């Protein structure tokens, strides 16, 4: 028995949007809201796939005019050369302006100290916050997605930050309908997450649909790696491997791109977008679980970093 007032026939009208169209439309709406309401927005651009998709969406949102935002890269100094090359080429191709906040410069100047484990991800927060203050950015686009991590699942699309960039999850503004409240005091800024509702698979499907070029490290290639904390890390100047860690050549690809010291590669023979999508659809691990050492530190590692102003 059912008490259904009206039954469902299982078919949608021709006016239904595909999920990618719906997500794209939502993200473009968010970019345009920021362009309409803020003075100095900036896109955090690392050359990773999420920031590449953000830039692609921003280009579409304002065409045929140029993107009305600058880019900011928080450079840990432990970069994949392919990614830096991609970043610079993209900036030149679209006539964009790129700011770089360098963790290495902070370390060299004695303002930050290298951690014993060599991980520089947590060190990005101070250069990021100071760059925001220095350039008086009032809206900062991040590629964070709610599906990435349980603390991020609680994040708003418009996330108000004080002058220390701190995130207080208990004091977030309720976000209703598509009405984003970007009011902020001088010195405060708003972190904006246009990809909030995208999953890793959505990002890859969108990259495939839009034929977006990515740095080569996202596809299977042979690389000298060594095992640490159950992940494959690239050998490099940043400090790995230790004497006890054996370097070997494996066929791998990166699912995420971040600081070399804590971003792990996965075994993969996926050399095309379709193969990557098939691999992710079948994967039984989240991308952060598979590739990020910094989130394995504690149950609330991401929440703690976010409270201090992390992406």
């Amino acid at each position, binding site marked *: *028995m*059912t*008490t*259904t*007032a*009206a039954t*469902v*026939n299982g078919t*949608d*009208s021709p*006016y*239904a*949007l*595909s*999920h*990618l169209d*719906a997500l*794209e*439309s*939502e993200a*473009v*709406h968010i970019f*345009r*809201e920021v362009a*309409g309401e803020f003075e100095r927005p900036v896109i955090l651009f690392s050359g990773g796939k999420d920031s590449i998709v953000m830039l692609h969406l921003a280009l*579409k*949102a*304002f065409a*045929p*005019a140029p993107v009305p935002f600058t880019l900011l890269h928080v450079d840990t100094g432990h970069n994949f050369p392919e990614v830096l090359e991609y970043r610079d080429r993209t900036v030149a191709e679209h006539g964009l302006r790129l700011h770089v906040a360098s963790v290495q410069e902070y370390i060299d100047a004695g303002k930050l100290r290298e951690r014993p484990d060599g991980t520089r991800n947590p060190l990005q927060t101070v250069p990021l916050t100071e760059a925001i203050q220095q350039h008086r950015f009032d809206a900062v686009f991040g590629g964070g997605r*709610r*599906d990435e991590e*349980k603390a991020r*699942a*609680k994040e708003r699309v418009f996330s108000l930050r004080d002058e220390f960039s701190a995130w207080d*999850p*208990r004091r977030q*503004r*309720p976000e*209703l*309908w598509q*009405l984003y*409240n970007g*009011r*902020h*005091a001088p010195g405060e800024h708003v972190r904006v997450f246009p990809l909030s*509702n995208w999953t890793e*698979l959505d990002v890859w*499907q969108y990259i495939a*649909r839009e034929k977006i070029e990515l740095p080569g490290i996202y596809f299977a290639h042979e690389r000298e790696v060594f095992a640490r904390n159950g992940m494959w890390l690239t050998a490099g100047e940043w400090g790995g491997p230790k004497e006890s860690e054996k370097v070997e050549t494996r066929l791998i690809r990166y699912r995420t791109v971040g600081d070399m010291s804590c971003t792990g590669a996965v075994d993969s023979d996926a050399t095309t977008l*379709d193969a990557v*999508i*098939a691999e992710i*659809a079948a*994967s039984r*691990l*989240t991308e952060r*679980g598979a590739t990020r050492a910094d989130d394995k530190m504690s*149950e*609330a590692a991401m929440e703690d970093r976010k409270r201090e102003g992390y992406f």
Partner: protein
Amino acid sequence: MTAITGLTEQLSATTLLRFATAGSVDDGKSTLVGRLLHDSKSILTDQLEAVEAASLKRGQEAPDLALLTDGLRAEREQGITIDVAYRYFATTRRRFILADTPGHVQYTRNMVTGASTAELAVVLVDARNGVVEQTRRHAAVAALLRVPHVVLAVNKMDLVAYAEPVFAAIAEEFTAYAASLGVPEITAIPISALAGDNVVEPSANMDWYGGPTVLEHLETVPVSHDLASCKARFPVQYVIRPQTAEHPDYRGYAGQIASGALRVGEAVTVLPSGRTSTITGIDALGEAVDIAWAPQSVTVTLADDLDISRGDLIAPSGSAPRTTQDVEATVCHVADQPLTVGQRVLLKHTTRTVKAIVKEIPSRLTLDDLSQHPDPGQLVANDIGRVKVRTAEPLALDAYRDSRRTGSFLLIDPADGTTLAAGMAGDSFAAEAVKAVADDEGWDF
């Protein structure tokens, strides 16, 4: 590669459903959400391992699936859901965005938040308790926010021996109540989230039930609205003027279609100015189209060079809304600081933010029993009430019952930017019930 390409296409062709769940741990909400995610293979090994480890640390033997969505330390420590958590999962037929909201009265604002973008709401009841105060509150929130589809999940059927009469009585009572509040479609499903009956797989224990499982219903419920009955509304977000050698005179109005469809060649009126023109082009993010519909983000060009800026609304001339400076609405108060009569606020409606003053707060509503409290003087966090607001500039406001997107607004504190209240313009059952109190022998306040 053919098989893989097929997979890509199959995955790309699905639609998106946003839905909300309301209920408390006692109703088995977390178990239901956990089962939907688990049985649709959306919980990945490392997440499950993390939950198992955390559960074990707390001395629980079975993995506590609430830990998957209770993402904040305070939530995990207190064992309660405080804030809306968004979860994402997919089947081959559809992609889902789940707003998992807490059920207790002090979190009404979170439920309202989750319901505001939901196309479907799942209300949970315990088959042993039937429709209780909390159930009525959840039905009222879904009705107030005009969530198009409501599912009543009658849970713990295993504890009432899978008895049809128990389910039928609860379904009948709830359906009558929700329908009286204006919920357009109610589907009641008997389930056991713990045992898995009718969540993903049909139950072998309830052959008297011929309807869909929860997941089947989520996969097939229509998500696009009927464009013929919706008037087109296009709030201008941003004016695109490249002023480049290639596009010296281009002027495009960028926005997301809030409802209905726009067509090239259509006569349109721009509000609040009232000027008219004709649509000459629609650019759907790089593709020139003849028609576009909600919720597509597009850029529109017009035949005439009008003075149009962010905050204006473009609508077909035949069905343009009237503009007003006097807003009557039902609001949900979402801030810790109160809303008072005489308060100066900002009102954000679509892409337009204007100064406004709260003229009256005629009544406050108790959602549990729909009792009215006239002239409360102020609204505090989680209150639902009626307000009359006067705006400094005219707004092209629709009734919320006609358009969720262009009938909704926020009240914002101009001093610190706090979102004070979520408003729904026009009548609702919150206004109608006042009359009932007036002729009645009176409620016990």
